[in-house]
């Protein structure tokens, strides 16, 4: 078995994943990066995207994250995610409905702040949807 690194994926509500992995590809704001054992210490913010856990050279799990932070060092990789859902569990119909609802909210927003909030929510829902396929 190849060398492994301790990978943890945590959301504010719970610890989602905690296991030994060979490699994780993480969507950083400045581009994807792969966390492997003996990676140089490194902290990055995350962009919405898909986090891929590799085992034996192929993708084992794909998890969507909406944003957050990642900390990597020689022995472990910790991802603090804002919203994490395994790709196969993304509820496409629900998201579609949510986007339509937000569209309405944008239309009838009473203040700029409200509109902006709805717009950013819509954008994140759309990105999530785009990654579902």
């Amino acid at each position: 078995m190849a060398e492994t690194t301790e990978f943890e994926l945590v959301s504010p509500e719970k610890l989602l994943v905690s296991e030994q992995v060979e490699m994780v590809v993480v969507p950083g704001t400045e581009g994807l990066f792969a966390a492997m054992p003996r990676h140089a210490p490194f902290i990055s913010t995350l962009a919405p995207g898909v986090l891929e856990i590799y085992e034996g050279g192929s993708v084992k799990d794909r998890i969507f994250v909406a944003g957050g932070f990642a900390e990597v060092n020689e022995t472990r990789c910790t991802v603090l995610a804002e919203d994490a859902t395994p790709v196969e569990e993304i509820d496409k119909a629900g998201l579609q409905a949510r986007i339509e609802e937000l569209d309405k909210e944008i239309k009838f927003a009473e203040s700029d702040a409200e509109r902006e909030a709805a717009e950013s929510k819509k954008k994140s829902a759309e990105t999530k949807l785009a990654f579902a396929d």
Partner: protein
Amino acid sequence: MASLKDLRNRIKSVQSTRKITSAMKMVAAAKLRRAQEQAEASRPYSERMSRMLGSLAGGMAEGAGGPKLLTGTGENKVHLLVICTAERGLCGGFNGQIARLARKTIADLKADGKTVKLMMVGRKGRDALRRDHEQDFVDYITFQDVKRMGFVQADDVANRVLAMFEAGEFDVCSILYSEFKSVIAQEPTVLQLIPASLPEEEEHGAETGGAKALYEYEPDEEQILEALLPRNLAVQVYRALLENAAGEQGARMTAMDNATRNAGDMINRLTLEYNRTRQAQITKELIEIISGAEAL
């Protein structure tokens, strides 16, 4: 002396009170377990968050002029207190303790010549402090309709705090909540949120294995801090809310346990009195009959 009918009625009413309190106790116990699990589940996130923040801030400290959320506004005049209490009563001294600590903190700050603003989270706290401090209230958030405390609620509170901070409405922000020590002990606590209070340096040193690891940052330290600090605020609020939720249920459970026991004692006492009265009445009637027969 109360008549037999009165006693019977009282016994019946205490019995139904006992039924209610013992049901409430059971409900509180179930909710407590859930709240504790939730608090447990949120712990890894906040631990890792403060670890990350610690290593970031360690690097920042040397070059001054970090983000305001970390260093403060440089002034110390206006304090915002976020006071978190329960939505409902019947939980012993839980809300009272927090309110007492809040009053004391407010008095101390005012004695120092500071301006105090209050953000009330939870209905009971607002009710308790409304009489003395209503003029200081700036915001009131209630989770009355919220079934299950989630991160969304904490985020909402944090966003309001941040919006006020950005508008320059206060310099220092603290949160008051009740720390969950054990099922029977909750301790009201004040925690400073802005400027951020950082985890102990030693702790962090031990984590990274003694030698302080040099981290690389992407995009750069400042941008990460800017994203991380508001997040950290929300996490702290979340933690406080969860501790409060667990503490509330714990306090309610103990209070209801006591109430159930008291009701049981009361029923025993009343039953004894009822039986005595009944016997006394029978004896009296017998004497009347016997003396009536003798008189003939």
